[in-house]
């Protein structure tokens, strides 16, 4: 079977030694088993994330995302651009759409891009890996390579904000999207359908600047998972994963709670279910150990 080819935009957090490096590790087994070939865009740059607006105006932000689109267009022609990080995807897709709608903005952006020796025609589509999984592979396709079904595991699917809004996955609702639950079920685990914090905001970048407000959000997200009998939270978002996992100890310290809920990526579930070991699934990259998943991976 020839592999499906995509221009891959990893994003800063997926680099070696960065906060989502275990996500980057975990997608290798998943992509291998699903026939997905991710071709890294040469010399890609940061998307500006959701907090870039403060200092960076509209045009500088359009320019930095346009640079990535132009590099993909030039070096990996004909391939959809795929990102694993919702912030990367959102910034890039917003840029692609804004430049598609306005010839004057495209002209100004290209004037800036010229300084980096590039030009954007605007032919590249910006997609999220989850879109590739749901639309190009499908749920049956995700189920096919399972050799170690995650039987008996109860999982709260936490989608968060930017994978879900403003674009989301085609055909899903903003208030109660179902694809992540179906992905959890595809690998043999039980998704908690009534988990009510599925699309709640974790505070995003305000986890740094407004820790108390953000930690209130995180506490709700984690406690609801406990209330619904979840053994772990699964998310498609790098910032959600980091915020919801890392700050549980802070909340415990300040508020006397005893939160210790593992938070992993869907790709880690798939990697384990497809036969990957703990290292391949990036399970050595956690502050709160996902023990049950580690046990299954070790079998």
């Amino acid at each position, binding site marked *: 079977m020839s592999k499906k080819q995509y221009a891959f935009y990893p994003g800063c957090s997926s680099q070696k030694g960065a906060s989502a490096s275990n996500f980057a590790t975990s997608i290798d087994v998943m992509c291998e088993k699903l026939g997905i070939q991710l071709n890294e865009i040469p010399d890609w740059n940061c998307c500006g994330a959701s907090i870039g607006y403060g200092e960076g105006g509209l045009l500088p932000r359009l320019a*930095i995302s346009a640079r990535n689109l132009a590099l993909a267009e030039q070096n990996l022609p004909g391939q959809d651009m795929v990102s694993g990080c919702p912030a990367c995807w959102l910034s890039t897709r917003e840029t692609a759409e804004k430049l598609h709608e306005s010839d004057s903005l495209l002209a100004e952006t290209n004037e800036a891009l010229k300084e980096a020796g590039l030009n954007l025609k605007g032919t590249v589509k910006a997609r999220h890996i989850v879109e590739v999984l749901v639309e190009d592979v499908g749920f049956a396709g995700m189920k096919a390579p399972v050799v170690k079904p995650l039987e008996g595991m109860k999982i709260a699917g936490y989608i968060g904000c930017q994978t879900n809004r403003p674009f989301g996955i085609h055909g899903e609702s903003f208030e109660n999207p179902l694809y992540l639950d179906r992905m959890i079920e595809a690998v043999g685990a039980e998704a908690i359908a009534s988990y009510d914090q599925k699309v709640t905001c974790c505070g995003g970048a305000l986890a740094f600047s407004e820790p108390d407000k953000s930690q209130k959000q995180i506490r709700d997200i984690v406690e609801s998972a406990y209330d619904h009998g979840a053994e772990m939270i699964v998310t498609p978002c790098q910032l959600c994963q980091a915020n919801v996992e890392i700050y549980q100890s802070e909340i415990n310290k300040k508020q006397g709670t005893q939160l210790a809920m593992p938070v992993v990526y869907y790709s880690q579930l798939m990697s384990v279910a497809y036969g990957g070991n703990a290292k391949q699934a990036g399970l050595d990259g956690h502050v709160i150990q996902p023990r049950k998943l580690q046990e299954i991976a070790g079998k």
Partner: protein
Amino acid sequence: MSEQNRQAVARYHNDFLKEVENHVEDGEWVKMCMQCGVCAGSCPLGNAWEHTPQKLFMMIRAGKRDEVLTTDSMWMCTSCYNCIVRCPRKLPITHIMHGLAHYAHRLGMAPKGQPTREVARLFWNNLAKTGRVNELKFSLAMYFKDGFMQGIRNALAMKGIGIGLMKAKRLNPMEILGGHKCKDKDGFRKMIAKAREIEDRGNKHAP
């Protein structure tokens, strides 16, 4: 008062709506708000806003320039996009809030030391140097933004988290020596400078 701010006041007198339409990202949408309040009720940090988006839109139309540009409200936006998908008039509210925050920042009117404003500035400056975010330097810059002693206190308070992340290989102390970067970081920097220059000479964002 910054020179840019003086020029804006001189040019628009009391027509703040016009000023927002001309200089704020997606500002032309402000007049479309029908004051239903769904945005205010949908915001995860809604109760932390001195003025909710709904209120800000009416204040802009009422010409309350100083109150709008000096409030810390827009800096409470977590970029969750709840308001955008729920707005019955389809206003790009998140973008307008980002745009207002940016405009207030550029005019020098945004509240001094507002934490999200500071984090946003540090984040952008971090990425603009090499084209990629250096998470270690970004974290340290945040800890030390209020001075050296406070930085030491902040770093000690977050020591457990830092060590946990290092053990999980998700924070690399060697990043202090440079870390990940774009090969063409010079071209990247020149591109950003050019984009800013174009924006300053154009209609949006600069009076």
